[in-house]
């Protein structure tokens, strides 16, 4: 029986030859950390007099508190920055955007790579064919000091994408469809291996949106089989084509195969309070909204900003709506400025915050009060996550968020 993509990547990184073991030690190619979760390990790392295994292979950025809104968060941020500087990490990216976006903007994120990060959405590196996964702070401390971690070899679910992406839909609608089908634990411990057989192929931004939320299915990896889209993205980013493209064997052994025909897909929305509580927009009851949020590592990329700008150019958002826009990185913000999207959205009534996690995790500016109803491009609508326990968040694509902002409501006839 042949091997899946994650089998091959893990085999290539195994540090022992104990193929029968349930858990094995592997080396990693890169490590990602942000202010909130990395600050938690600073004392324990320093008390043990540890050293970073390879300072060239670490990306640290402050994205949860960027810039900090309270004195306590400023203290956490400063602890993180002092730690990052004292360990000599080469890629300390101060106020440059969300760590997951910075990872995929970095040559450290390569097809076939094995990457760990101190945040669950590290899985987004799978958008370029890397086996990337999130971990807690203790795991990250261990990996930062040793360049290794322990792993199980996951079962793989093959997700075959066929048909063509409808003009009104994006990667967000695709991953919400998959969440509707599989549920919050439908990919638990699994590697989700995406085979893009669509015509034309999915854009790189759509792939990032899909990989990002593979963790909402419980996935360990959410990896696209690398192809010409991957190669073109890496070459434009790195100046050279990827040195290797790890592919699954044609006769690989899959636990399950799920096929999604994109041609039949419609704009989707996840209702409170689960990312798997998904219906078609057309099936919604009408819901007045008070907040629209376009941002987070799940979206906030250039194509998301373009879709929103296309929807709102020359129009005004509903006066009852606060529309918060946060580009996922400063590079994306600059590109959006050059393309005129920032001006179109600002003229329509949107407000821009600095590239960061923003209100997604209920931490930074834009959080919700008890009576707020939000439609958001972020990845989790768990109860209380974006603010007050009574607030409500619906998850949707950038286009749906923009249309809802203009209409002042989510409605079955948005499309």
């Amino acid at each position: 029986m042949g091997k899946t993509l994650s089998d091959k990547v893990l085999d290539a990184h195994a540090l022992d030859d104990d193929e029968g073991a349930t858990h094995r030690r592997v080396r990693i190619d890169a490590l990602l950390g942000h202010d909130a979760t990395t600050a938690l390990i600073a004392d324990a790392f320093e008390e043990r007099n540890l050293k970073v295994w390879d300072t060239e292979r670490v990306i640290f950025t402050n994205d949860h508190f960027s810039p900090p809104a309270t004195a306590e968060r400023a203290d956490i941020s400063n602890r993180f920055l002092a730690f990052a500087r004292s360990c000599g990490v080469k890629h300390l990216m101060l106020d440059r955007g969300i760590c997951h976006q910075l990872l995929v903007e970095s040559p450290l994120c390569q097809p076939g790579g094995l990457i760990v990060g101190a945040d669950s959405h590290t899985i987004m590196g799978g958008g370029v064919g890397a086996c990337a996964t999130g971990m807690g702070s203790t795991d990250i401390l261990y990996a930062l000091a040793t360049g290794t971690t322990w792993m199980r070899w996951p079962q793989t679910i093959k997700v075959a994408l066929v048909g063509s992406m409808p003009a009104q839909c994006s990667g967000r609608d695709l991953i919400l469809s998959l969440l509707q089908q599989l549920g919050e634990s439908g990919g638990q411990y699994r590697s989700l291996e995406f085979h893009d057989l669509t015509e034309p192929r999915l854009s790189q931004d759509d792939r990032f949106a899909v990989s990002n939320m593979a963790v909402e299915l419980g996935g360990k990896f959410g990896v696209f089989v690398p192809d010409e889209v991957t190669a073109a993205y890496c070459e434009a980013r790195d100046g050279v084509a990827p040195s290797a493209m790890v592919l699954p064997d044609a006769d690989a052994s899959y636990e399950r195969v799920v096929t999604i025909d994109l041609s039949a897909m419609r704009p989707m929305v996840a209702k409170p309070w689960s990312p798997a509580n998904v219906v078609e927009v057309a099936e919604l009851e009408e819901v007045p909204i008070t907040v629209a949020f376009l941002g987070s590592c799940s979206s906030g990329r250039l194509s998301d900003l373009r879709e929103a700008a296309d929807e709102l150019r020359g129009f005004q958002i509903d006066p009852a709506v606060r529309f918060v826009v946060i580009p996922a990185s400063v590079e994306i913000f600059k590109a959006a400025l050059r393309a005129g999207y920032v001006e179109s959205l600002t003229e329509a009534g949107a407000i821009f915050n600095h590239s960061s996690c923003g209100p997604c995790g209920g931490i930074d500016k834009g959080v919700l009060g008890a009576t707020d109803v939000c439609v958001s491009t972020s990845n989790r609508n768990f109860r209380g996550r974006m603010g007050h326990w009574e607030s409500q968040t619906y998850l949707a694509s950038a286009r749906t968020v923009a249309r809802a902002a203009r209409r002042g409501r989510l409605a079955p006839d948005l499309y």
Partner: protein
Amino acid sequence: MSNDEIIGRAWVFGDDLNTDVIHPPEFFSLHPDKVKKGLFHKLDPDLQSKLKPGDILVGGRNFGCGSSRETSMRSLLLNEVGAIVATSFARIFFRNATNNGLRCFTFEQSEDHLRIEPGERLTIVVAASKLRLESGEVIGLTPTGPFIQRIWTAGGLLQMPPFGPQP
């Protein structure tokens, strides 16, 4: 450690209990008192103060899904939760718990979590992989493999080589 018993009262939860509910992000902090206080705060502001050391959390499918923030784990440890028994665990949460020496067990029969009453006294017989209810009934738990047991026995990942005592 593996031949001991864990005894505590049951706190019963459902499926897909996520880490934002376990520990709301507004309690994210480097200060232990604040982290400790935040446990389940939005779900039930009085729950944390009623927890007793050794109490056992019981859940359904996908316990601990969502964020990797280890403040959720720290809060469970600061509140001295004795163990967690669930139908299944989200992978990051399971790693975090194991790495910190908090023992997570899964039911052998997935529906068994419905047999546990809130507040009842539970006994986990670790070596036998059994859960004894207050009524004396015994429920099977999935045996934990040697790899995870080694981390438990060491007291967490940072007590393992190369950080902890060498073998």
